[in-house]
């Protein structure tokens, strides 16, 4: 059985979600959006999945490979523009071509998560967050073997480290290889993607923390999407690039060209320690002695 998946192209309302080059590769509960759709379609009986993308087909290919891990064959079709469902049928499904999944699974625009057409992902940042929270109970799919529901409404990766003094409040999702340090508060309404670090006494509530993100000690991420150093308030769409990595930052390796020359390697070797101080210590630094502000006596 065959199916066509249409990758959503640029959506002006949510530019930060395409940070990895395509909305189809946006991280969602430990996989990318396209990965969840391939898994869903494989469960529906699809064995050949054709993916139409108007964005970087290399990024899409990189994200899902040839489909082997789902037991399907995935082919990537580059397109200049994002086709509508009708255009995709006309251009990529030959008349009389049999062996397709029955509608509506034969051609799908991935603008929502599988099984949740009423929760659009890309209309706004608030719609993205609402869709994720709505889909959370379904997110523990058969391939998410490393994430378990440890208490009602609380999912955590088996390779994650959660301090016994951290508070987990349902609903919340803690992905794989996440570290939640002492006194942190996660939830309600929190999604922490894989490999992120929530440092001591930080709070994450009604928010999504993207993969490979460090949330600094004593900080509060609320009503926001935090991915790398970008903090977006999903209520107002206001975005901030946080300048100080000890408050919010990325743990991912930079995607710029590697430092292969001698000068670049020397600079890389001099990179400062990656242990960030906590926020109060940092704010107090430089406030002692002469740099203090004093009111006249």
């Amino acid at each position, binding site marked *: 059985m065959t199916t066509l998946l249409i990758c959503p192209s640029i959506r002006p309302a949510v530019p930060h979600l395409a940070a990895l080059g395509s909305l189809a590769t946006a991280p969602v509960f430990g996989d990318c959006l396209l990965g969840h759709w391939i898994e869903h379609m494989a469960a529906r009986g699809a064995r050949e999945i054709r993916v139409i993308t108007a964005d970087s087909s290399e990024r899409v290919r990189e994200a899902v490979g040839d489909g082997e891990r789902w037991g399907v064959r995935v082919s990537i079709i580059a397109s200049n523009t994002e086709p509508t469902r009708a255009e995709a049928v006309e251009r990529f499904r030959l008349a009389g071509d049999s062996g397709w999944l029955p509608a509506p699974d034969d051609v799908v625009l991935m603008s929502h998560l599988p099984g949740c057409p009423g929760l659009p992902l890309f209309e706004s940042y608030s719609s993205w967050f609402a869709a994720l929270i709505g889909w959370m109970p379904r997110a523990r799919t058969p391939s998410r073997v490393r994430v378990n529901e440890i208490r009602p409404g609380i999912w955590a990766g088996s390779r994650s480290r959660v301090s016994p003094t951290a508070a987990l409040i349902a609903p919340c999702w803690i992905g794989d290889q996440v570290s939640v340090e002492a006194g942190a508060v996660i939830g309600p309404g929190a999604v922490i993607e894989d490999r992120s670090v929530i440092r001591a006494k930080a709070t994450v509530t009604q928010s999504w923390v993207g993969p490979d993100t460090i949330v600094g000690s004593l900080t509060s991420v609320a009503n926001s999407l935090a991915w790398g150093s970008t903090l977006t308030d999903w209520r107002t769409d206001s975005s901030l690039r946080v*300048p*100080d990595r000890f408050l*919010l930052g990325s743990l991912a390796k930079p995607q710029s060209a590697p430092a292969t020359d001698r000068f670049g390697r020397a600079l890389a070797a001099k990179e400062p320690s990656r242990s960030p101080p906590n926020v109060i210590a940092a704010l*107090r*630094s430089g406030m002692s002695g002469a740099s203090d502000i004093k009111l006249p006596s």
Partner: protein
Amino acid sequence: MKIDNQKQCLSISEIPELTAANSANFRDQVQSALKDSPSVIEINLSQTRFMDSSGLGALFALYRATAQRKGVILRLLNPAPEIQQLLELTQMQLLFEIVRR
């Protein structure tokens, strides 16, 4: 940066950014203006588009100075959305009276 000191009210405005590059200067200028013992200090952040931990530290230093003195009111006026986000991320919005007018 503009500093206006009238009728016991110290108003600080026109701060395009408050960062490591200018936070020491901000502290020095504020320190000088405090000699007139204002009872109200208002920092207008409506034009501030960029702030880092040094800028937050300068605000925190002013907060500490005023917290030790009864009767002195410290207000932040009209922070831009991204500055409001930074204040909320660091929980400094709990320390300051933030006024929109």
